[in-house]
């Protein structure tokens, strides 16, 4: 009887030791992963900081101004060029869709009701 209990206890001991080992191993593994991810996050942070610094350097108004003077024909904005939106006139009604090759022809075509056939001169049928 006692021997059976002893055996059971030893078995439980071995099992629990194995289980503990398993937990320990996986926790070590997880800890390593955490450390690795932390290092990676820090590296990414550093890279972001470096890129932000570079961006700010490229975005520097002094540099932009020099480039704009050299390559663009833009001029400084004047006070008279500002206006509020509610003073903007209504958009004119578009008679012709934009990009038409022959706008005047299209305009005439629009005015003509296709249903009505105008009379007048009969089509010469057979002209010598």
């Amino acid at each position: 009887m006692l021997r059976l209990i002893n055996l059971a206890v030893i078995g439980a001991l071995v099992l629990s030791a194995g289980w503990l080992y398993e937990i320990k191993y996986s926790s070590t593994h997880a800890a390593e992963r955490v450390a690795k991810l932390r290092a990676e996050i820090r590296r990414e942070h550093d890279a972001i900081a470096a890129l932000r610094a570079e961006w700010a350097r490229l975005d520097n108004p002094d540099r932009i101004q020099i480039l704009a003077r050299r390559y663009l024909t833009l001029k400084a904005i004047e006070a008279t060029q500002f206006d509020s939106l509610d003073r903007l006139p209504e958009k004119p009604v578009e008679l012709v869709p934009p990009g038409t090759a022959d706008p005047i022809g299209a305009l005439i075509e629009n005015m003509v009701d296709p249903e009505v056939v105008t009379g007048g001169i009969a089509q010469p049928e057979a002209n010598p």
Partner: protein
Amino acid sequence: MPSDSPRPTGLMSARRRLVHRLLYGRNVDRSAKARARVVLAIAGFAALYAIVALRLVMFAVVPESHAVRRTSQDAVATARPDIVDRNGQVLATDVRMPSLFGEPRKIIDVDEATELLSAVLPDLESAEVRERLGSRRGFVWLKREIKPQQQQQIHRLGIPGIGFLPENKRVYPNGAEVSHLIGLVNIDNQGIAGMEKWLDGRGLADLHRAGFATDRQQEPIELAVDLRVQHALRDELVAAAEKFKAKAAAGLVVDVNTGEIISMVSVPDYDPNNPREANDPTRINRLTTGVFELGSTFKALTIAMALDSGKVTLSSSFDARMPLRYGRFNIHDYHAQHRVLTVPEIFTYSSNIGTARMALALGVEHHKWFLRKLGQLDRLRTELPESAEPLVPKRWGELNTVTIAFGHGLSVAPLQAVMGINALVNGGYLIPPTFLRRSQEEARALATQVIKPETSDKMRYLLRLNAEKGSATKADVKGYYVGGKTGTAEKVVNGRYSKTKLLTTFTAILPADKPRYQVLIILDEPQGLKETFGFATSGWNAGPTAGKVIARIAPMLGIEPRFDMPPADRLILARGQ
């Protein structure tokens, strides 16, 4: 144990008996003793196992201290929070840079190491490296801040005893643009000037000393400055200093209602990435570190004092027919009219005689009291560590009041004068200027009412009138309803006022009917040009410069242009009644 086993006493030798007696005494119950001993042993082992168990629990609960130590080691220079402007543009940031170090005791072949290293880093002084690596020290820096590619190459060489430590390096992507405002740091990333020093004063230095400020977990610091405005102001000031051959130029843009400093430029300035330039004394910040006699700009303060006292109204008049004689001094007018002038005329013609008479009418004590109330006589402290004490006359007599009334004989820091004039136009609130963001409510909580709101309205009117038909017409940018005051002060050279060395200032408020911003322009020793007909007074140089600055920055500051505005007496004065 042998002592536990019963032994016939007769067999014991004399020596044994002695030992026995010493150990157990004479009349002791030996079985009780044995039990006690077993209990003791059990207790001892139990304690031992308890310690082991406790230690195990501690190891399990406390995270590995190993990793913590590693991270604190890898950043030597302090990590600093980023500094951004009011729109979130980066003004200063930290970048990790590897630094190369050697451990001479671990190096096997010094010559080989030196040779390999100088192949990768050509700018490395090989004799110096050899000497450093040949020393018997445990740790030597070889090169601070190398490029990541170089780090990779050196790493591949596989030299024993050579390693890298990542360090934080402070970079200022905008270079000289915000130099005086932001200051700079030394090689160990500690602030030595400007807002950087202020940051250290706020506890960052202590954090660093404790070894915590190593990683970038700190919130960025948001300043009140607007980088776009700062650039426009600096660009115009550099151009003006060049055009008028001025020794120096300085400018300020301040929010009238909150005291926020939107922009502060003092040229010549320096590139904070190159600390050597910063020590040059000609590059000081003239707006906070210098004190100047500001000339006619001070007349605004004198007239506000007179109007606020109630003894003088806008329709009062003062005799400006003759130069004012005081002792052996004669006070003249620059734009002399030789007649009796009303208060608005005194302001627009910038009459020295008129303002001096006004100040005399109120008396020395009142004048002193008023200027002290407006903070012109005490040192103004802001976040910047640099500040200058105003030069106040030790014995302040009537003559001092006469000259100070038109801005001579009292030297103040320009920022201080700006604070005073803000109070004149924002409804009478004296608000200490700040470089940090501040809301209108916070400003109101800090503010003290120094003049009546009606007086403030009158000052707005006078400033606008001056831009309509006074000395400030050249700064009147159409559409922004600018008000302004010129100031031309003669500089003191060898104890005398010089006629040729001038300090010209221009103070502008916009829009004058409900001011939101104040712009101050200062030119140090501008020269007369052909196009200014040889004049070097403020209306010809500082005024137009202010106009150009306003035209550029007003759209950025969100000021809507308005045209066909009524003149000042109809718009501003009529409202007050």
